[in-house]
């Protein structure tokens, strides 16, 4: 029988729920055209929640093992909350400008999606797992299409296209996942991840696992399930893309880790080969296809695909070091990518498409924005003294430790290929001729970018504490071996 004690590990999520309700209530209270505050409120609540995570203890199982709280889970919660807070803060102006009277719902969707993200890493029961997955995913599809109908800037057309593409592909892969899970359940007789690990292996069970993984791979956007990514990123409103590009990915990795390393524990070898395939394909396709892009959002989308490949390396090792560094990578990636997209938003607040030419001469039009963009792309490329460098490096170390030096070489070389297009951005920012006038950045957006920048620089200058906690979390996830 569930008791109140079962709620303790879920305290963060409950607070998040209440935050959502609060936002809902305030939204109802506020008159039309005065809803700007909602964004700040959401950001504030999420930030507060983020702070709270450092003071509560959420370890331990709940609801007869359907949910399990660990430091690992907690770190993913933090990442999600940070992403949400930054996204909310960064979206304030956009939302207020483009759909002033539908702000509340926007933030509600954001919060609900976040709830899915905070719950998912802890889910240890297939049913809960699936439901959280959906709770995370559905609002995203809606937010993608959540835009103002202004035919001049074609936001609406593209947003709708982006939303529907995301939705249809995700619906298909959800069906696939469920189908796979149905087999998994049926052949293991249980829905608890740890229970599944005990089931005898049969072809049908393997097929079920594979179908499940296919669905997960879609969520993180690994090749060949990435096709929706660039289109959606290009078409959807930028602040949302900033969130979409980091939040679900982080959580998706939590899910992948849970499935691969807990539920399907017995089949490391076979699954490892598969993941390796994902890694290589994602890195190659993502980097190569980013090369010719002129639309920066699209370029970053492909680069994101490649980055997924690098993160998967950590998953591939399955070692404590590997998972810890995956976590570190994810955390760094959140601030970096979020920041990059927010800069794009700051440059072209009225458009979904931002080309390299829009970045021309940014160093002059807004020096700090230029510097921020430079640091973000450097971090994405993995250049020293920004977080991206340590992230890639540590993942490489983990991979080498796991005995796959060639993969390190491959990864490093592809990272250099990626430098080509990242430097295209730097090139535009610092060498493009100045045509337009200064960029005026609204305070909220500036604050969000500033926070991302701080994160990138701080984690780059002093990575030690993050590394420590990440490895600790990883060991808590793997448990005693």
């Amino acid at each position: 029988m569930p008791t109140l004690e079962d709620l303790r590990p879920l305290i963060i999520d409950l607070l998040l729920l209440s935050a959502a309700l609060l936002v809902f209530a305030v939204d109802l209270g506020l008159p039309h055209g005065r809803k700007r505050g909602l964004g700040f409120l959401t950001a504030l609540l999420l930030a507060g929640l983020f702070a709270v995570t450092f003071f509560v203890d959420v370890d331990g199982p709940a609801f007869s093992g359907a949910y399990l709280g660990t430091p690992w889970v907690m770190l993913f919660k933090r990442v999600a909350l940070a992403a949400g807070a930054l996204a909310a803060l960064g979206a304030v102006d956009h939302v207020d400008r483009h759909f002033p009277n539908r702000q509340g719902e926007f933030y509600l969707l954001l919060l609900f999606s976040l709830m899915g993200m905070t719950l998912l890493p802890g889910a240890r029961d297939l049913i809960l797992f699936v439901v959280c997955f959906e709770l995370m995913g559905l609002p995203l599809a809606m937010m993608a299409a959540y835009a103002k109908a202004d035919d001049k800037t074609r936001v609406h057309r593209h947003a709708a296209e982006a939303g529907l593409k995301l939705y249809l592909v995700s619906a298909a892969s959800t069906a696939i996942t469920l189908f796979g899970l149905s087999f998994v359940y049926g052949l293991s007789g249980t829905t608890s991840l740890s229970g599944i690990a005990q089931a005898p292996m049969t072809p049908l069970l393997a097929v079920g696992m594979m179908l499940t993984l296919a669905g997960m791979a879609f969520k993180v956007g690994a090749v060949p399930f990435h096709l929706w990514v660039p289109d959606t990123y290009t078409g959807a409103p930028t602040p949302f893309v900033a969130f979409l590009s980091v939040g679900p990915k982080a959580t998706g990795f939590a899910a992948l880790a849970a499935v691969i390393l807990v539920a399907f524990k017995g089949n490391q070898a076979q699954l490892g080969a598969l993941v390796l395939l994902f890694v290589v394909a994602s890195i190659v396709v993502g980097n190569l296809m980013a090369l010719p892009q002129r639309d920066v959002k699209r370029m970053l989308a492909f680069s994101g695909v490649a980055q997924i490949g690098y993160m998967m390396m950590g998953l591939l090792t399955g070692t404590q070091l590997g998972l810890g560094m995956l976590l570190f990578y994810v955390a760094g990636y959140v601030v970096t990518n979020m920041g990059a997209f927010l800069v794009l938003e700051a440059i072209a607040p009225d458009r979904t498409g931002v080309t390299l030419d829009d970045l021309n001469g940014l160093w002059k039009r807004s020096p700090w924005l230029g510097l921020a963009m430079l640091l973000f792309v450097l971090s994405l490329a993995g250049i020293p003294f920004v977080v991206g460098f340590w992230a890639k490096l540590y993942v490489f170390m983990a991979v080498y430790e796991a005995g796959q030096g060639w993969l390190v070489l491959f990864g490093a070389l592809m990272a250099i290929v990626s430098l080509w297009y990242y430097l295209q951005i730097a090139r535009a920012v610092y060498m493009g001729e100045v045509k337009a006038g200064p960029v005026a950045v609204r305070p909220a957006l500036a604050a969000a970018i500033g926070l991302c920048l701080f994160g990138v620089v701080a984690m780059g200058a002093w990575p030690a504490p993050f590394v420590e906690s990440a490895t600790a979390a990883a060991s808590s996830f793997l448990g005693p071996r």
Partner: protein
Amino acid sequence: MLAQVAFGIVALALLGSASRVVTARNLVHTVLWLGLTLAVTAVAYILLNANFLAAIQIILYTGGVLTLMLFGVMLTHRDEGFVAVQNPSGRFVAGGILALAVFAMLAGAILRTPSLPATPAPPVTTEALGSAFLTEHVLAFEVLSLLLLVAALGAIVLARRKDAGEEGESQGAVLPERKALPTRQPKAEALPVAARTSGGEA
């Protein structure tokens, strides 16, 4: 013996109607065939002693989903909506191959899997079902409720046609419609758009 016959009938009906769902040229027919499929599925549930589920299936699906989708068809209904656009048959071939591949893969796995029980286990009572919801799966249940809530909320917000006080929204809703109206060869209209805004040439 009877069970076999019943299963055979259900199976035939199910597959038949489903195949119509995916092949019917007229959208309304598609939806109606879908309804039939779902209904037949309910029958299959009954064959599997899942009466409660069968009921849910009839009420929720065949009621709710069907209505919804009909609404959808009507709302997005267009003159040429009923006239299917000329379709490259290659697509059907490809689709067929894919579907066959899927089936072959699944069937192969199923047949290669030993020890699939052939005899039913004791049936489940609805009470057990209900209590399961409120005990071990209560958390998932709550989350599910949130999910439904957010789905409804989002759907409403998105689908709301007019949004008081938001300039541009109203024509935004109408304008493109008018622009895109006479589309015998829709590509002709779609292509330049694509050319204008596709993701950037190197």
